[in-house]
């Protein structure tokens, strides 16, 4: 299981296109319904990230594929120190001229069309300095790309939950009986729910999860990849908060401890 925390490694976010009423900064909000809207069916979002981030997540998007490109800034390597202010000239005859620093971009394309849930969890190798993550969203012709949440950070990694994960839905729709005996139905949001138990070693993972994540964040919401070792299905990814109170654990073993977690999708 992975949980993205800390999750605030994006310092600047920009989009190559946006509807003026739905700016890209909307994705920094924890409200998944507060979306960024592009103006076409392909759009690029650029995230300048602090060094160290190893994952980026996207929630509530209608894209069918997202290409993730990580790179350090391409172009001239400006020297920051007084001694070398300016462009870094090479000293030896063999390389006289401007020192081009070309970084290798790492590109991965994720097909998220198999699930209609509209979310992405992408892990990548970080860089020693600040870097850029570009997300190229694509969808069928005629679709206007949108997304509700984009976060980058360092996932905390735990063992996958024990067998017996319970998965369900909480329905906020309205269902009322009509005079005919039929029903009036107004579909509203339906939230996913997940209930599971973790078995973690106490001295590290249990206390880290309980005190470095849960106690700090409170009810949430956070990005979760509930199962990551035995399955990489998109369905195990959820932007959720703790349902019915914060998780609690029990120390039933000399070294290991159980943690019971109830999640409800943040919508």
């Amino acid at each position: 299981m992975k949980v993205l925390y800390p999750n605030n490694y994006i310092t600047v976010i920009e989009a190559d296109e946006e509807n003026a009423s739905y700016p890209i900064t909307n994705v920094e909000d924890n409200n998944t319904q507060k979306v960024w809207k592009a103006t076409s069916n392909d759009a690029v979002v650029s995230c300048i990230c602090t060094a160290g981030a190893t994952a980026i997540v996207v929630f509530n998007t209608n894209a069918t594929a997202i290409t993730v490109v990580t790179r350090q800034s391409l172009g001239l390597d400006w020297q920051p120190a007084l001694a070398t202010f300016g462009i870094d000239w090479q000293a030896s005859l063999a390389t006289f001229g401007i020192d081009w620093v070309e970084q290798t971009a790492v590109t991965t394309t994720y097909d998220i069309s198999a699930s209609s849930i509209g979310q992405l969890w992408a892990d990548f190798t970080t860089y020693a300095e600040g870097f850029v993550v570009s997300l190229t969203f694509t969808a069928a012709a005629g679709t206007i790309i949108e997304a509700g949440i984009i976060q980058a950070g360092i996932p905390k990694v735990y063992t996958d939950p024990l067998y017996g994960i319970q998965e369900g839905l909480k329905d906020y729709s309205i269902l009322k009986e009509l005079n005919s005996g039929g029903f009036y139905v107004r579909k509203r949001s339906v939230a996913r729910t997940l209930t599971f138990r973790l078995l973690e070693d106490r001295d590290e993972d249990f206390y880290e999860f309980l005190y470095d994540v849960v106690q700090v964040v409170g009810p949430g919401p956070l990005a979760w990849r509930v199962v990551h070792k035995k399955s990489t299905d998109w369905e195990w990814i959820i932007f959720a908060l703790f349902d019915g109170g914060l998780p609690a654990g029990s120390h039933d073993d000399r070294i290991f401890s159980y943690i019971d977690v109830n999640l409800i999708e943040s919508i």
Partner: protein
Amino acid sequence: MLLVQQTINAVVNKISIESHNLEAPYYNRIFQMDSLNQGIRKAYGGYFKADIGGYVLSPELFTGDWPPPINGAISMAYSAITEAAAVTFLTGTAHRTMFDRESVKYDIYGDQNDYVVPDATAYAPNDTLVDVFTDQCGVAKMNLTLDSTLARNPSPGVTYTTSGEQLAVDFLDGIAAFFTHMFYIFDGTLYLMDMAANNGTRTLTENDYFGPVESPVEYFNNVPCAIAKAGDYSAQSAYYYGDEISETDYTTGSAAGVDAAAALALIITYQNKDRCRIAIPFLGDLPAPGEQITLVDTSQIVSTTMVFNARIIQYDFDNDQIIIEGEGEVTAT
């Protein structure tokens, strides 16, 4: 869907009960909303007035404007599809009543026309009800456009001199009820209509209204009117055991009280009509004041038909229903 625009420190905020990503976003900042009630106070006519309690908002709406401002302009609209198709049904002012760390509550006040009718304003001898409304809607008075398309024709004669100052809407409320007319004000226009007129029609099938578990259809009757009085004149009904209605006579001095008697007879008729209350979902067009509604109800022991006109309309957004009440005639189908 409910679309609300509340002005907070000169900035218009678009909010709703749920989030709606329309041409512009309406965020789910309304936690709870009282029902919006619109209707006439008397069964036989008057001012179809909006009356709403208030609503509870998320403090998140005010993070840049803390503490929440004491008041702000508000408009409420409804649309089934798009923002462009939204129909505004209320404009007014939201006035803060309380806030705590979890919520901010505002009461809502509809727009008020504050023109006051001077003492001893006289209408006679050839003025009609429409003439009175035309006069009061004048630019120097209420400054409204009058639409009397659905008023009675010929309009009943008025012979009356006001006594003391009073709000024009209150004066018109009384005189409209006396002559069994109703009126409502919307977007700068005052619509005057005969209680016998239909401001549009619709037929509801049993798939169009709720019941019997959720909101059973109610057929009921007012306490009957036994006698209606106005000044020196009166009219009696067949229900001698009923109550008395007393109205101001707006036909003072007309020939032998003939006009007063006719008006009082109509008051008795509307007071004693069958009444109905139903709840419908927010589908299609909103019901209009005075709209005639026909429904067949086979859930009764004998299939029942009710034809009535909407006189009280209650928008219950929290329960996703519109409650409509009015008078008409109930029969076996």
